[in-house]
């Protein structure tokens, strides 16, 4: 495997990416984006903007009609396993399929061909990072929504990816689980791409935001500036987050 050690390589370079499904044309149109190592980039936009399709292209699940993608300096080829990029799916049930949490988290490391002791160590490490060590022997389908989310994240982190793509990570989470996820992501070191309709969550976690609509990147910039622009947000079916609304009583400081 190539040693992805060049610190000068951007984590992700996407240039001129276009994609259509057989029954849905122009899902993505000439999308370009560059993400530096360590950045946390939020993707916002209405339903159908192309966020999930963009993620599947970044991870090499889909083949673009045009354009190129490179992860840490190496082009993404469809179907080629790139353990340096992990994806956390919107529905944790799409990821969790093993009879126990332990087996599920070990699935990725085993596919990397790691020895048994290393696999075990990675399971422990991923679960302690996500705070779910006590779940290790539970069947995934008996977990709560929040627990499933953290276990599905642990399953990706066990491969030690350098870029993690999160698709709607706060969907269906209660307040406590959401807060726990925010704290976890704020403390994480990996480069992140996060798609979410939870704009307050994006504000708390991301240091850059990309607004997508109708398959295009509309704007790319500092979260408070982009999401504070009422006209821009409303033009693309979004709303300014409540915490960016000026208050008589400054309770968001």
């Amino acid at each position, binding site marked *: 495997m190539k040693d992805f050690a060049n610190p000068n390589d951007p984590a992700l370079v996407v240039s001129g990416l276009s994609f259509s499904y057989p029954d849905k044309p122009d899902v993505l149109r000439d999308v370009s984006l560059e993400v530096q190592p360590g950045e946390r980039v939020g993707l916002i936009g209405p339903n159908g903007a192309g966020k999930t399709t963009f993620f599947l292209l970044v991870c090499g699940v889909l083949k673009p009609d045009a354009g190129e993608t490179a992860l840490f300096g190496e082009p993404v080829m469809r179907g080629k396993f790139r353990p340096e990029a*992990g994806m956390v799916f919107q529905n944790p*049930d*799409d*990821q969790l399929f093993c009879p126990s949490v332990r087996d599920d988290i070990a*699935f990725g490391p085993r*596919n990397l061909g790691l020895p048994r002791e290393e696999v075990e160590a990675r399971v422990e490490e991923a679960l302690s990072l996500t705070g779910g060590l006590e779940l290790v022997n539970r069947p995934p389908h008996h977990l709560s929504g929040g627990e499933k989310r953290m276990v599905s994240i642990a*399953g990706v982190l066990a491969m030690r990816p350098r870029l993690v793509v999160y698709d709607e990570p706060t969907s269906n989470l209660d307040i406590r689980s959401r807060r726990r996820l925010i704290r976890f992501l704020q403390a994480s070191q990996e480069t992140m791409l996060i798609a979410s309709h939870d704009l307050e969550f994006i504000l708390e976690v991301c240091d850059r935001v990309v607004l997508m609509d109708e398959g295009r990147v509309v704007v790319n910039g500092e979260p408070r500036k982009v999401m504070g622009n009422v006209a821009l947000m409303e033009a693309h079916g979004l709303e300014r987050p409540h915490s960016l609304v000026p208050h008589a009583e400054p309770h968001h400081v």
Partner: protein
Amino acid sequence: MKLLLDEYAHLDSPLHRWEPRCRLIGLMALILGFSFVRDLRLLPAMIAASFALYAVSRLPVSFLVTRLRFPGFFLLMMAILLPFLSGQTVLLRVGPLALRQEGCLELLLIGVRFVCILTAGLILFGSAPFLTTIKAMRALGLPPILADMTLFSYRYIYEIGDDLEAMETAMRLRGFRRGAVTASLLGTLAALAGSILVRSYEQSERVYKAMVLRGYGRPTRPCDGFQVRRRDLAGLVVALLVTAGFIAAEILFRQFGG
């Protein structure tokens, strides 16, 4: 790829316009007639009838080919041995294998009947929305529970297919590759199948609860809105006559045929 049955239900053809109950009875009768045929002399007429019907339905040829492919594969797997095992008259001998005339003719009969019956079935389900076909079955006396089960099976088989696709994608992104058959691979596939079953079961329970909460199970008045016109009846009579023709010809050939 989703192989929907009613993908071309929006087309406009005499078969699409045919009143659903008449279409159901007419085409089911024709299928029955096709299944009755044993005499090889009736095969050309059967092929002509089913393909003429398909042409009238204006369904694309690709629809027929893609839907016949998978069941055709299973038929081939089962019937491929017939020419070598069935019959006495040897046509060709290659080493220990002998190609037999009776087996070849049986394969021909099974193959043609299979294509004709499936073509008629695809016309039946392909020329109206699936829900309309189920409503026609209900109107003809199919018990509601069976109608609902058919509808849900059709609806959720694609849902389960989508779930499976998403799970396989998630597995691929964690390095899963289908290679040689090993205990580990079988274990992984068993876990995947088990998860799909558990998820489907849980989803069916949720859907059922949601249905009950909206009054499912209470007696309802049928409101299919079907109206039979004269031309629908004419179509039905033609279909029944063709069916009767096949059955009568078969009986005649059996009694007097050489």
